[in-house]
């Protein structure tokens, strides 16, 4: 039987943590009661989640190029999520729907 070394253990931990963050994001998306709260929940949760999964996979990657590519994917995801969240929040604020639709 092969043994699980430290790197594998850290990797497994990061991957599970990432999955937990994705779960949190989905729960937030479904349970929070207005648009801004949902935005807050998921744009943070899913990017930390993706970050953890990316880190976990980087530890297992076969070459330096693969590590760099995963890091680039994560960095681009950060950028896209930041801008998208900003744009959608702005849109929602202008629309006024996000606040007004909050149930009593």
């Amino acid at each position, binding site marked *: 039987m092969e043994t699980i070394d430290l790197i594998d253990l850290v990797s497994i931990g990061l991957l599970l943590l990432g999955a937990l963050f994705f779960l949190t994001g989905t729960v937030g998306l479904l349970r929070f009661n207005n648009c801004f709260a949902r935005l807050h929940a998921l744009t943070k949760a899913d990017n930390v989640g993706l970050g953890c999964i990316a880190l976990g996979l980087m530890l297992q990657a076969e070459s330096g190029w693969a590590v760099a590519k995963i890091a680039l994917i994560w960095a681009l995801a950060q950028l896209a999520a930041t801008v998208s969240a*900003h744009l959608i929040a702005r849109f929602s604020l202008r629309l006024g729907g996000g606040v007004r639709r909050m149930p009593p």
Partner: protein
Amino acid sequence: MIRALADDAVSGAATGAATGAATDLEIAALLWWAFDGLLALGLLGLAYQVVAGRQLFRSVVLFIIYGLLMAVAWARLAAPDLALAEAAIGAGLTGALLLSAYRNLIGTDGEEGPHAPITPPAGAPPMTVPRWAALFAAALAGLLVAGIGWVAVGLQPPEQTAGRLALEQLAESGVENPVTAVLLNFRSIDTIGEVVVLFVAFLAARVVAQELDHAGPGDWLRASQREPLLVGPLIAFIAPMAVLVTGYLLWAGGHQPGGAFQAGAVLAALAVLLRLTGRLRPRLEPTLLERSVLVGGVVLFSAIGLAGAGLAGAVLEYPPGWDYRLILLIETVLTLSIALPLALLFSGSGGLRQEVR
């Protein structure tokens, strides 16, 4: 956890290891089965909602998500070339195109715009298909699909398929990626046809397209409003990155998944991004440069193909030793000739010009 299961199975060393391995494989098969099943169900459900949904905007968003899952489906079918194309076209072009079309439909004030779908007058009979006709058509279509499936399942797998033939001859093609070898060497006539189709689609769209104003930037580029703060930095990062990725996909096409179509789609997506944010503006007529890029791919591909008749003995045959270089040249020009019509189709204009600020 799985390791623990495997360890439990150790009673006699050899048999224990064997059972452990078998359990691992069984669990892996079960997990893949679950993944593929969920994916298929999700795709079917999404497709149904996209078509049958009553709210147009919801259908648009669901279609964007459908594109995401479709790319995962191609990935599961071990077809990364198609997954790349789906990702570039789905995320970069289709989503923006549908949202722009939606914007056109609802008009600028949130009421029905000039291009809203025609609603029948109140007294008119409903424009629906009678139930029996729908059931009849559904039954016929179901029979047809079942019949084709039944025949397909019963077929003997042929000894020598085109795919196997292509894989055997891969060394002669000049490239290592079998998909590129088929697209640009073994069946290059089909690829010329596809590029011509794209060009004709562009010409056809030029005939019917009249409006230029709806694909432009929204409210926030009017004089009264400023552009959102983060858009400038976003484009400053994304634009060079997209050009880099275009070059990477083009180069990668020779030995791993990638190629002219994927690279062209990424470049077109960049043009869409610039068009959406007002960096590029529409122009009615293409310039000479744009015209030559539009036809460049077909012209170069055909010229090299015809030259092959003299130099290599057959039309669309490359001279020996020149395969890789010629394929790379054709792919580079094709990338531009694919990107420009896609961008112009989105823009709904004959040409593009840079916005002077």
